[in-house]
């Protein structure tokens, strides 16, 4: 059901849409080698280099690079892994959680860095790939820890329910935990990045259109659009880092949940 609401007089303003996310390939014959793909690869290189040089020759009184690297690593290790998974087992999962956090954070922040300005995670494939990894990990951990029967039994049959209701609740629980949870995990990251990118496009390119093609008052008002663009850029920075944190946090929580047996 589609509805054309307003026709702009004059030609030319193209409101942003999902077409803005189809970027052309960088090398003409290789269709899939687009800018986001390249940025994801570069981000891996940058992160590896950063943490390699941060950890090289560590001193007791750290230099700036070591301090930054240790700060980020310590934050993830303390607040995300150890506090949630518990001090006994968190080391096994710390590489995964840490990598997820820094990879997603850097790729998100690419959305506001000049000349890059495209958050890699706003293409649905990237969050889905990361969520697939997390999904396999937490289901695998749960099945290993509680046995396949025990894992599904604990999931699907909550205590304290009259027994005839179980047949209604069990499939609901199964669908929710096994299918919809990873769906919300990936969609949350994707939707935040997608919407943030669209917002920035609206304000900045809209402001440019107002400045160049508008008459009179519209030209003056374009400064409002640019001001909103600046405000939104800072807001996007917050959202981007927060979404990376939430993804890593929920990964840790799901792993912890899959491992917990009795209380």
């Amino acid at each position: 059901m589609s509805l054309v609401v307003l026709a702009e007089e004059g030609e030319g303003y193209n409101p942003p849409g999902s077409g803005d996310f189809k970027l052309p390939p960088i090398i003409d014959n290789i269709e899939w080698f687009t800018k986001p793909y390249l940025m994801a690869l570069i981000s891996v290189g940058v992160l590896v280099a950063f943490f390699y040089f941060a950890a090289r020759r560590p001193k007791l009184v750290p230099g700036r690079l070591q301090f930054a690297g240790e700060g980020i690593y310590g934050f993830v290790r303390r607040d995300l892994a150890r506090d949630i998974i518990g001090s006994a087992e968190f080391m096994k999962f710390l590489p995964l959680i840490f990598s997820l956090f820094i990879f997603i954070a850097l790729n998100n922040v690419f959305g506001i860095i000049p000349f890059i300005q495209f958050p890699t995670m706003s293409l649905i494939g990237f969050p889905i790939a990361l969520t697939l990894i997390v999904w396999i990990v937490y289901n695998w951990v749960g099945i290993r820890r509680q046995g396949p029967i025990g894992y599904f039994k604990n999931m699907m049959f909550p205590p304290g329910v009259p027994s005839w209701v179980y047949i209604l609740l069990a499939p609901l629980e199964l669908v929710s935990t096994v299918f919809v949870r990873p769906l919300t995990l990936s969609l949350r990251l994707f939707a935040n990045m997608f919407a943030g990118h669209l917002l920035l496009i609206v304000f900045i390119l809209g402001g440019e259109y107002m400045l160049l093609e508008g008459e009179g008052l519209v030209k003056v008002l374009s400064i409002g659009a640019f001001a909103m663009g600046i405000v939104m850029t800072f807001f996007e920075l917050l959202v981007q880092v927060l979404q990376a944190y939430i993804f890593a946090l929920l990964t840790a929580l799901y792993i912890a949940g899959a491992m917990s047996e009795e209380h």
Partner: protein
Amino acid sequence: MGQDKRPHAANHDAAADTGAWDIVAYLLSGMLLWGGAGWLIDRWLGLRVFLPIGLLFGTGLALYLVYVRYGRAPEPPADQHDGEPNGSSR
């Protein structure tokens, strides 16, 4: 009744449980599952009424499940000593 063997953070002072997001997942999956079932029955019977019925039923069921998992006051473990105020009335 039996202990709830469900996910909880190892350290309860840590940042929020999966609670809020699990609730969204329950509601969504209730709507999708039973709404989908209602839609399939609609296609089979050629009606249009079962889709909203399925959606409402799925939402109600999901709300009940949220109540079962998260809406009841947690039972204190059998060996708890301090007088923590609890609201469980069993």
